[in-house]
């Protein structure tokens, strides 16, 4: 086991890569009753064209298949459901699929070793049948319909469709009702065999644990299993420039007030280690300082009664490209979004004072330390950034040594070509 110390935040990680390629990270948190474990594969909804394990040609799979696979992996050979087995051990389990990763997790205070064994076993033993694939379709269909009534989801998906032409950020993680109809047990096995090889996976355990004991338990479990040879996974991502597909589009829903999302497409780039994480962080600093509750611009929008609630923002970057998203509700959507767009385009020349930057460094340190109270935050953010070729525990020391020059470099992303807007109007809204 390799021990990595992060003295500035008073945390330690033990790390080991097993012979079968599985990466293990153990993070001790003395005094906690609870243990949290997550087992993730570097495979999410963005990968839908790849060479299946043992084959030689690229193949495209239905949208939403990574998420469907996540649901169905809980089915066990004897007809039981892994989630039920966790529950019976008094453990809470769950799973989620995102753009870049699929993660299976459990937490609890007792039966941790049994739970860990189950986590490794059910994820590493798929059981897809025609019947269980069919019965899952109805459930996922209801899940997708539920999202269709959530304005926030519609806003996000609409913005992504405006932004990307071929890159799969265009599509919702869950796919569509039409696409999931094409999923069969055969396609599920193809995806599984390609992406659930231990060499493409990470296991993280956080809590008051005996690291040697846990590591041995994992090793024993893995040594009993046979895996095919690890192969390089060939994924095909369709590259596109920063130009957006559409500058504007809208839909109507049964809502009380127009909801607007404005976004910039972040173009394809080659990133070094930790760079995707730091670019995200720098962009968040800019957006917080310019649009957040402390900003003059936000106060102006409130004073002019243009905005309702807050001006939300988010930044996402996988290890290739991504987006900036700014969203808000407004009773005067045209005027408000015109002002927001003009303002965002001015960020090409970023003005941030040294005092402001130092204040953000302090705030981000504080915010990160607070997050370290929470085992879920530690494990899930660690795994997310790990798959983005970044180490989240290093973020604080990297930020500490960064300068205003790093921030100013971000101006290049606020380009007119890369900007798009999507609006959800109330159903009887008359636009001018």
């Amino acid at each position: 086991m390799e021990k990595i110390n992060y003295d500035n935040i008073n945390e330690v990680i033990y790390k080991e890569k097993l012979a079968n390629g599985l990466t293990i990270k153990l993070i001790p948190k003395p005094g906690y009753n609870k243990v949290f474990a997550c087992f993730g594969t570097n495979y999410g909804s963005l990968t839908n064209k790849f060479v299946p394990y043992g084959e030689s040609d690229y193949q495209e799979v239905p949208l939403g298949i990574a998420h469907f696979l996540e649901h169905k992996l809980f089915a066990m050979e004897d007809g039981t459901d892994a989630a039920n087995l966790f529950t019976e051990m008094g453990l809470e389990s769950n799973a989620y699929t995102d753009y870049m990763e699929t993660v299976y997790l459990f937490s609890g205070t007792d039966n941790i070793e049994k739970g860990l064994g189950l986590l490794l076993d059910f994820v590493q033993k798929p059981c897809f049948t025609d019947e269980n694939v069919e019965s899952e379709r109805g459930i996922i269909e209801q899940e997708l319909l539920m999202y269709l009534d959530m304005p926030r989801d519609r806003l996000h998906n609409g913005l992504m469709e405006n932004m990307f032409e071929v890159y799969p950020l265009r599509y919702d993680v869950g796919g569509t009702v039409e696409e999931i109809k094409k999923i069969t047990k055969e396609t599920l096995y193809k995806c599984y065999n390609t992406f659930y090889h231990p060499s493409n996976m990470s296991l993280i355990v956080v809590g008051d644990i005996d690291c040697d004991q846990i590591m041995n338990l994992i090793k024993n479990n893995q040594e009993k299993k046979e895996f095919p040879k690890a192969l390089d996974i060939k994924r095909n991502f369709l590259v596109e420039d920063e130009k957006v597909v559409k500058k504007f589009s809208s839909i109507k829903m049964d809502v009380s007030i127009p909801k607007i999302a404005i976004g910039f497409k972040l173009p394809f780039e080659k990133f070094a280690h930790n760079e995707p994480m730091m670019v995200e962080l720098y962009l968040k600093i800019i957006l917080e300082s310019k649009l957040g509750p402390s900003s003059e611009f936000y106060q102006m929008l409130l004073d002019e009664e243009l905005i309702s609630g807050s001006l939300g923002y988010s930044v996402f970057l996988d290890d290739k490209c991504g987006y900036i998203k700014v969203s808000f509700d407004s009773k005067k959507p045209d005027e408000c979004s015109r002002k927001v767009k003009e303002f965002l385009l001015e960020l090409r020349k970023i003005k941030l004072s040294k005092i402001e930057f130092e204040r953000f460094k302090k705030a981000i340190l504080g915010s990160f330390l607070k997050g370290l109270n929470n085992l879920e935050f530690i494990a899930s953010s660690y795994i997310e950034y790990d798959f983005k070729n970044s180490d989240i525990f290093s973020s604080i020391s990297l930020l500490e040594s960064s300068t205003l020059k790093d921030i100013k470099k971000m101006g290049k992303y606020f380009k007119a070509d890369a900007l798009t807007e999507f609006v959800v109007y109330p159903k009887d809204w008359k636009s001018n």
Partner: protein
Amino acid sequence: MEVNNFYINDIPVYFSKTEKFKTINLQIIFLNEFNEFLATRLSLLSRLLNNSTKKYNTKKKIVNKLFDLYDANVSVFSYPSYKTSLTVFSLEIVNEKNINDKTLINEAFLFLKEVIFNPNISWGSFNEKEFFEEKRRLKESIEKIYDNKNRYSIKKLIQNMCQGEISSVSSLGNLEELEKITPKTIAETYEFLINTSNVSIYCVGDITEERLKEELKNFDFKQNSKENFQIVSNEIKKINSVKEVKETQNVNQSILCMGYRTSFNSNDDDYFAGLVFSEMFGGLYTSDLFRVVREENSLAYSIVSQMIPDVKIMIVNAGIDGKNYDFVLKLVSDELKKYKEGTISNDLLEVAKATLINDLKETEDDPKSYASYMFKNYLTGLNLTISDNIDKVDSITIEDVKKIAQGIELDTVFLLTNN
């Protein structure tokens, strides 16, 4: 974890010193009445207190101050427990040890004091600019409940089910009451809250008792008896016939909400049995509702039951295809009937108990949960340790669960649908 109890100027302080967390958490809780008149006023007042003080009179100044305090969280919020309102002033800061700053605790406590005792009020009237801005924002928040179909459906269920009861009063507020509030009357609400509440304090983190006392000694609270306030309902509601309400909107999925009356509140001996029942019925992943509705019939992505024990209500909630309404309703009612008849799985009982015991142990892993646990002891006057609570859960039998089920009656069904 241990809890120390002491008083500062008549104010009880519950304090748990621990090095486990990287933060210090403090909650100051004001108990007062909860009623239709006060609900909207407390909701608006909390927002006003959050967003400006006399010294930090703009959002910009407040937010920058919090950033300077290493992203300290200071928040004010209000929620009800039966006929009592709980207005919480909460502070979360990182531990000085982690950042090598010896002034943080003192500055953060001073800031919290400013938020509580120095609101943006002059000559008996709240600052008008702040007031009208927050009033407009609250109005829009109330209107926007409509956009969250699940939340909207639960609100409509409760409104239909509990007309004239305290449970139907929204703690976010209502538009009619909001319209009546002025900068002057909200300042009166502030004075009322500060002068007539019962105050108690909860702290979790790595700070010495002496330091905590030192930091709190300049807070000038007025203390009132907590016996003035009714925290749980003992009302018994008779149901003559089940009310069914349907509303049509332009939605893709229908939302079914079923409201039940229960026989226990959060202070009763039956409380834990009630929680065990809720887990078994529709809380757990292996619960009967989840199994029957989702796994066996693929009718919903999720179906859950939840208890609102202070007002003796249970809600079952699911997103379904509207055409399956009668079928889902029947499945849920049949499951409840089985419990009433005593057809109850012992395995499921054990699982529910293990899950609740697990949750109780995890109370010690989160400073806010631990503060809530200490607060609950203060409210009930029962000084139960976590392990006392675990013993209570552990001793629950099938008979206890059956008794809970027999006290549960369907009152109202609400369906939001598109046809």
